[in-house]
């Protein structure tokens, strides 16, 4: 199924939740409103023509100029063989979005990683802890304005 057909299927369900859509280019996607992401995810997973059963990755991108953090959900349908992406733009000061771990279980660890390194809070996530860094780490290192730390527990970073 082509990207434009996927967008046409989404529109009757979530038309007012779609901010913009890109059917052409190397990365076809829709940009949706943050509060509608879970509903769009449910449609993508369950609609018999879409059947996106595999969440390939969640990318978090920091845009200081636009004052936003962007999340990109890359999806694949293993049964129908097509791919698509959903993007959502969040407020940089307090990025919050509904978790999709209930739709795709793979999202659980991806969302923990986005929380750990980018500081995105996923609402109703089953276990939102840091996944890579120590529990007591301060800050979210992949933010563009992350201050490079001097030391951690007495271990110097630039000896």
């Amino acid at each position, binding site marked *: 199924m082509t990207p434009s057909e996927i967008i046409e299927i989404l529109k009757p369900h979530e038309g007012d939740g779609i901010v913009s859509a890109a059917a052409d280019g190397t990365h076809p996607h829709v940009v949706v409103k943050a509060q509608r992401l879970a509903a769009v995810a449910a449609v993508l997973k369950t609609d018999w023509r879409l059947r996106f059963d595999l969440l390939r990755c969640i990318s978090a991108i920091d845009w200081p100029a636009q004052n936003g953090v962007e999340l990109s959900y890359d999806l694949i349908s293993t049964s129908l063989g097509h791919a698509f992406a959903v993007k959502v733009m969040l407020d940089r000061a307090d990025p919050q979005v509904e978790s999709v771990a209930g739709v795709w279980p793979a999202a659980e660890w991806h969302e923990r990683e986005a929380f750990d390194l980018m500081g995105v809070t996923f609402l109703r996530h089953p276990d939102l802890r840091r996944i890579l*860094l*120590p529990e007591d780490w301060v800050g979210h*290192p992949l933010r563009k304005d*992350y201050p490079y730390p001097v030391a951690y527990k007495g271990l110097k*970073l*630039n000896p």
Partner: protein
Amino acid sequence: MALIEGIFEPGLVVTTVDWVLNWSRKRSIFPMTFGIACCAIEMMATGAARFDLDRFGAGAFRATPRQADLMIVAGTVTFKMAERLRRLWEQMAEPRFVIAMGACAISGGPYHLHAYHVVKGVDQVVPVDVYVPGCPPRPEALIEGLMRLQDKIGTRTIAKKCEV
């Protein structure tokens, strides 16, 4: 005629306690099964048939720090790992030795300048006896490091507390 000649049975060997202890210690260094990153692949190759660390008595990789004499830090040590690494080292029985294998364990290596999460040298966490440079070091290099560690063990004495 020497002092004790003819007093004991033939086959008597005279030596020092230091020599016997060091001789046995340096020929039975049990490393810990502990690989953190890609250097561990070279460490496994060193232990396997082609390079055969068992020729030096160091091929018995122990699955518990309680039975291990040597910790080969084979890979990148992150801050999260540093606490666990220190705890494993503390669980090892003395005398215990540490080989820092590869650029990451020595200085942070490729992560030295810009990584916020990597310990810049495992000697900040545990005392290191031998540094084996390389990225990763070849098995020959690790064997060389082990032989230098054997030399170091050979200089120990029970007469005073040893820093080695």
